[in-house]
């Protein structure tokens, strides 16, 4: 999948590439640990109805990790600058997995430029006690097992054996960047639950029913922390419902955001 034409903007001294395509209400999409989602078929559908803005988190898709970057908060502040620079208004903010966490962190800072929030199989909180592993330890799970936790139907997963060297290296780079943003505390910000009450825009959580990395129960706990939030569960989908069930995903998204 090609990224297509990329825009670039320099913020905080960081060369930030992003896709901007389509017209309509602005939709800011923050991808997850698997890397950019803009090249996926569901995104093309969204570009027919939205002005889709999809940046690449520093470190993903072969980009550099800035020396001073340590965690999700660096990403949050980069995107706070980004939405100011692009003068985004009245937009839908949607984040996938760690991108959902980032979106939630942005939303507790300010919702001024957004009209609604969508979190897809998002991490960011720790609902369980200290002895509970709320999010599967993706860095400590055998690749074969990880595949099963991530996908409802593993035959839909990208096949590592068929990837060329560049694609593999980009994937390995994505994994490093994901770790940088999420390693410790693992996949969550202990302070976030105490701040989620600040989210004052309509919020939808979309979850894959078979997500073994971040379960629907985790999603429900997340939903309960955000005032007025709704949650929909998509059958026969794992951690990436937008990839496994794009039609069901789009229909839920559009029913909420249109």
């Amino acid at each position: 999948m090609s990224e297509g034409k990329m825009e670039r903007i320099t913020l905080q001294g960081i060369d930030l590439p992003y896709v901007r395509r389509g017209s309509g209400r602005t939709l800011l999409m923050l991808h997850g640990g698997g890397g950019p989602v803009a090249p996926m078929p569901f995104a093309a559908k969204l570009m027919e109805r939205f002005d889709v803005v999809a940046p690449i988190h520093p470190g993903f898709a072969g980009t550099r990790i800035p020396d001073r970057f340590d965690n999700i908060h660096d990403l949050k502040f980069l995107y706070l600058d980004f939405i100011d620079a692009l003068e985004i208004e009245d937009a839908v903010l949607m984040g996938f997995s760690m991108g959902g966490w980032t979106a939630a962190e942005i939303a507790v800072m300010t919702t001024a430029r957004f009209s609604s929030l969508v979190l897809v199989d998002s991490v960011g909180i720790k609902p369980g006690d200290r002895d509970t592993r709320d999010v599967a330890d993706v860095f400590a799970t055998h690749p074969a097992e990880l595949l099963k936790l991530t996908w409802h139907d593993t035959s839909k997963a990208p096949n590592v054996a068929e990837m060329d060297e560049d694609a593999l290296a980009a994937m390995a780079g994505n994994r490093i960047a994901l770790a940088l943003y999420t390693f410790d505390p693992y996949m969550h910000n202990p302070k976030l639950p105490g701040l989620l009450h600040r989210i004052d825009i309509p919020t939808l959580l979309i979850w894959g029913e078979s997500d073994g990395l971040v379960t629907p129960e985790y999603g429900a706990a997340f939903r309960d922390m955000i005032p007025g939030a709704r949650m929909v569960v998509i059958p026969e989908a794992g951690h990436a419902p937008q990839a496994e069930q794009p039609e069901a995903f789009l229909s839920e998204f559009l029913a909420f955001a249109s």
Partner: protein
Amino acid sequence: MKTWFFTEDAYPYLPDADSYESIRVNLPNKHYDPDVGADLYHRYLDMWTAADEIGLEIMLNEHHQTATCVVPAAPLMLAILARETKRARLLILGNPIANRNTPVRVAEEMAMVDVLSRGRLECGFVRGVPYESAPANVIAFRGTERLWEAHDLIMKAWTHHEGPFNFEGRFYHMRQVNIWPRPYQQPHPPVWVTIGSAGSGVQVAKHKHVGAVFLAGYNGIRTIFDGYRGGYREAHGTEAPLDRLAYCALIHVGENESRAREGAEKILWYMTSNKVAAQWNNPPGYHPPHVAAMIMKGARGGAGVPLNPQLDDQMARGNVFAGTPDKVFEQIKAFWEYSGGFGHLLMMGQAGFLSYGDTLTSMQLFNDEVYPRLRELTESYDPDRMAHLRNSLPDVEATSLGDLGFAFVR
């Protein structure tokens, strides 16, 4: 040449390897019998004290959550040896300071051991193997940067004697550093750092620390040592002295060829036992993306240790020196000449089920019959002659990464 007796302090009494996923990180410790473990600790300590009596120097190291090395706190062993040995230099190789987030504590522990041993400490710092990331719960990314910042803080803690100093760096933040005791050796104990590539040697050479290479064999040794030597020349304008480089191999000396082979086969346990699950081999940020990608594709990474080693093959590679004293001397001499020379030999002289008796026999034979000739060899070191020798020995052809794995970095 100084020779350092080294055992990893393994717990080899394990169930069939097919019954567990990995000897590292997630092997349940129900397989560890503390009674057996106590005997083993004392046996290993006896081996090290024997090395002291025989005339060898002492080396130990540290790993976590593994049966291959049941010393998760090497400074504790070191403290015992500081008291129980009389003569030997005590090398810890090393403190995994990229993963241990307490550099000042490391400086304190090492200063204590140095004083206790009346200045016999040689202090190593290591980034650690990939499978140390999970037990430490520390991201492997920027491990090298953390290592060097921790190193700088430790060096300052050792050498600053006028009351508290401030250190607020990229990773470590301390405002009142003033360790008691200070080291016995002045200005500080000798420092060692493990190196596994030409690039990693440069920084070590800048500091004039000893660069130690593990099992790089003929395949890798020239590149790595040359990286160090080049870095040294560049930074200091002179050639690196021999005693700035160290090489670690599996070594067994026997009374005769068959006894020697028998012992060497047992030491190969170090390689055969190292069954490591994929998820521990490739922690994010340990390897650069292109290397991590190769591991994802199936190449064995990180350890670089083959699981089915053949003794003759490993000897040919320069990873194992084994035989009668004459043969072992010849093997080491050949490797030494090929490598361009080094001043320290790290003798992994015990592993797996090699008995106390066989280990001591090997140490004694080495000390009596190999060591004197190695000393002569290094004393006769002449840089010009070595350069000539090296030029006359062609590079050993690189072996594919697929079956050998990647550079061995402790």
